[in-house]
């Protein structure tokens, strides 16, 4: 189902932005696959009616990642363990700062989805990302992209003398209820806003 034209502004109240990590290494059994939710983010999807370019912009706070699930491992993750992971992400992986995605091209894809290509800026390194954003009849949108941390010069976290590592590739997914669009007359231009 195609998304109606309009400007949509989304955030945590509308859905979830999650990061799924896996593990590798000889001692990978000791670690956990994680589902981490980004709890502070804002996205603007601009779909003009007629002429004009569609665009998507998203910003997220790297300090807002919260561990929601951990599967595998030798014992279940407790609240303290989750807090430790969040601190480690901030101290040793992402640091504190903005995560920014800006689309370069948004095109219709089969089934009413959107094919989105753009640049993701992480820790000052910008790399291309492409993914599909699908829309369901229930008014929800969903999309996922697989990213290699090392493409953004991030060294995947490792422990146990390098025998337990977070896999380089992580999956980032958005799943949200599409809010009502902003009326056309009040629309701002995301391309101008985000390219400043």
């Amino acid at each position, binding site marked *: 189902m195609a998304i109606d034209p309009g400007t949509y502004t989304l955030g945590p109240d509308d859905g979830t932005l999650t990061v799924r990590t896996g593990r590798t290494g000889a001692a990978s059994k*000791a670690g956990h696959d994680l589902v981490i939710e980004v709890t502070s983010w804002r996205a603007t999807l601009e779909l003009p009616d007629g002429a004009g370019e569609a665009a998507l912009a998203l910003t997220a706070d790297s300090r807002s990642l919260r561990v929601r699930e951990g599967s595998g491992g030798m014992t279940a993750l407790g609240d303290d363990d989750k807090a430790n992971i969040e601190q480690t992400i901030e101290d040793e992986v992402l640091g504190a700062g903005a995560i920014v995605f800006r689309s370069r091209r948004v095109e219709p894809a089969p089934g009413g989805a959107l094919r989105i290509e753009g640049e993701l800026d992480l820790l000052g390194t910008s790399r291309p990302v492409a993914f599909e954003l699908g829309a369901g009849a229930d008014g929800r949108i969903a999309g996922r992209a697989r990213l290699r941390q090392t493409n953004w010069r991030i060294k995947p976290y490792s422990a146990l003398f390098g025998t337990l590592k977070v896999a380089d590739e992580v999956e980032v997914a958005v799943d949200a209820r599409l809010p009502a669009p902003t009326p056309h007359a009040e629309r701002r231009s995301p391309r101008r806003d985000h390219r400043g």
Partner: protein
Amino acid sequence: MVELDHSFTTGRPAEDAWAAMLDLDRLIPCVQGGKVVERTSPEAAKAEIRVKMGAMSMTFAGTVEVVERDDAARRARLRVKAREVGGQGHANADVAFHVSDGGGTIHTAAQITGKAASMGEGVVQTVLDGLITDFTRRLQAV
């Protein structure tokens, strides 16, 4: 039982390194996550080691004792007996040192039981190898 052999360099005369390596207050902190809890005699200590596994960690607490020493040959054997804190596992090891001018060798015979052992002997061996290799690097600063 996992058996491992490592060599290390100190860049110092054997006499200096020998004295340092038998000083448990200096030796035990060379193990990543290791600390002396209490010296119980000149050649024994209560100690613990915290092994970080990502977000989680396992702590083993027990004793480290010099059970044999030959000052002339500069050979010693340490016995480590530890139990997993809050768990059922054990980590016991016999660690034999030989110190010579500029470096030395370590032979480790370890027996790990409990959760850590459930990862499999190959994994335990790989992790122990990493732990001891890291230990030998830190010995250079002792």
